[in-house]
């Protein structure tokens, strides 16, 4: 069961990185956390690839590394440098309250996942819980932060959560579909970066 324990470690690190994201006001740190989170997701996929020995998952591991760990954070850093946004971000609820709220969302997602798991997910039930928690905390990030970058990071976190869920209850989506999804995500980040540049140029948002 060593492989199982190592996989659980990666999943827990994903949850830890999301909560760290909530607890910190710095945007650069948030982007680095996102990159770390995607790396953990990629390693989880790699463990699945080794365990089930499927080419699909090896390919998924590689494209996750390329798109989510390297390319998207690189573009976000470039945009951040051009925009010269303040490193601090202001928010609707303070940081300690946000962390407590994130904890309660984790509990909530545990409750929800128990109901779903009862009906028949055979493996990866723990991962499904964590993916639901990441989804909810990412949504909270989007809602309670006023900076545009935080909305992007929140959206990317939600997307990571869905990938995690896809890898937890099945052996991964077909490679063609994953390639399409990741490519769309990448283009959407490019377009959002262009929009941020233009929004900052017109007024101070």
């Amino acid at each position, binding site marked *: 069961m060593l492989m199982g324990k190592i996989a659980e470690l990666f999943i827990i690190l994903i949850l830890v990185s999301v909560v760290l994201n909530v607890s910190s006001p710095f945007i650069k740190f948030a982007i680095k956390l996102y990159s770390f989170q995607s790396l953990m997701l990629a390693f989880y996929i790699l463990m699945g690839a080794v365990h089930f020995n499927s080419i699909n998952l090896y390919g998924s591991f590689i494209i996750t590394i390329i798109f989510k760990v390297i390319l998207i954070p690189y573009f976000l850093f470039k945009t951040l440098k051009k925009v010269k946004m303040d490193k601090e971000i202001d928010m609707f609820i303070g940081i300690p309250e946000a962390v407590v709220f994130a904890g309660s969302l984790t509990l909530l997602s545990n409750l929800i996942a128990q109901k779903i798991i009862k009906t028949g997910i055979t493996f990866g039930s723990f991962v499904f819980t964590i993916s639901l928690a990441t*989804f909810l905390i990412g949504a909270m990030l989007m809602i309670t932060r006023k900076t545009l970058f935080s*909305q992007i990071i929140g959206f990317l976190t939600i997307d990571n959560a869905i990938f995690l869920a896809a890898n937890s209850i099945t052996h991964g989506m077909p490679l063609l*579909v994953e390639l399409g999804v990741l490519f769309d995500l990448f283009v959407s980040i490019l377009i959002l970066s262009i929009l941020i540049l233009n929004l900052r140029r017109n007024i101070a948002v």
Partner: protein
Amino acid sequence: MYELVLALPAIALIVSVFADVLLMSYLQLGISILVFSIVIAIAMSFNSITVFLGGFFFVDYINLVILITVSTLELFVAFYSFGYVRTEIAGGVSKRKFKFYYFWKNLFIFSMMVSILSNNLGIYWTGLEATTLATALLVSFNRTKESFEATWKYVIMCSVGIAIGLFAIVILYFTTSQVYGESLQSLSFINIMQAGAKLDKNFLMLAFLLALVGFGTKVGFAPMHNWLPDAHSQGPSPVSALLSGVLLNTALLGILRFYQINGASGIYYPRYFLIGFGFFTILVSAFSVIKQTDYKRLFAFSSMENMGIIALGFGIGGIAVIGSLLQIFFHALNKGLLFLSSGNVLAATHERRIDKIRNLSKNFPVTALVLLFGVMGISGMPPFAMFLGEIYIMTGVFRSNILLGFLVFILLVFIFIGLFVKILKMYTGNTENEEAGDEFKNSKTAHKGVDESVIHPFMVYVPLILLLLSSLLLFYIPSPFLNIVQSASAEFGGRIIFK
């Protein structure tokens, strides 16, 4: 022949990168006419579900209704764009900017065709997200502060919504992979429909709910509709027409696919959720229409209302489904003509507010007439085609629940009053001019002395032709189209006639 429907927009896309804008407008006309004729040829000779391009794409009756809608509206919008480009260039916009206009528009059309014709749900998702991204830079085409904010809201909200839809597809994949194994086969819609009752019912219901909320964000159901008025009003008018007319329907197609899958495995609860969301959308848009001061936002709210009516019709079932399918086509034509003719007003006067525009009938005779009759048509008055769609839907609603029917009827009357009062104010003169005695001395109108001659004739007459078509369709619908609509509504019983 089926592959050409996908290949031609792709060719247009590649050509638009290289060709000059004015040449591209001619090519766009040619390609739109070709696509339209191919779709008509397909529609005439269609009698069973056809799969093509390796099982990834297929055409069935519902697809065909939306495909006919897209190709018809694109034909008229291509003619309108021809004039629009020339008018804007004559008004001083650079040609380089318009090159990107055609590129993104063709990418939009291509990804919409991919999305509509797809058999594989993953490809449907990719196409839908690609349409969001392709229209994002079109909505911000004018590069004003409001348009950038509108684009931001649009991209973020629709991407989150579509991500929730991805969650729905993941859960559906989980259930179908227990029947078909984990491969691309288990995302194929035809396979899923044939698996039918073997799928786990709880997960199917969960997947439908997630898809309803997720793809419903892109359709514009309330309470997820906040992006719609801004995005549809800030873009250039032909883009607004396409967005309102066909993109909302493409997202609705995803919800309908999940609805069909649930129907095939014997779950009938989804219809109540569709009815609920449809009714709530009509309610919210009825109360919002009254407060609008910008005429393009007004029409955007009307789009939202019509999507609510269409969803209500699909939820009620029976005869209302025929009404909804007809409404999809007629609403695209009618909303297209409203946005295009209001685009004429905007292009000539550069004024977005309703109370700054008066006395349209004097200087813009054709456009004003089209606007007035278009608003009558969009509210469902005869002799325009949407009367037929709304009668079928309202018959279905009244048959199932009289109270709901009265509520919906009252809301529709509200919307009619709201739209008509504002447009009538624009159409005739008001007292501020006439009191002054002198022609435009104290006037607050924006268009002193501007008239229709600054606009290219295509822009003026395309909405008029759409209006006449919409009126003609009430009295005579070609019988192949009627057969297609009837077969499509039979498909909603949950069984596909697959040969």
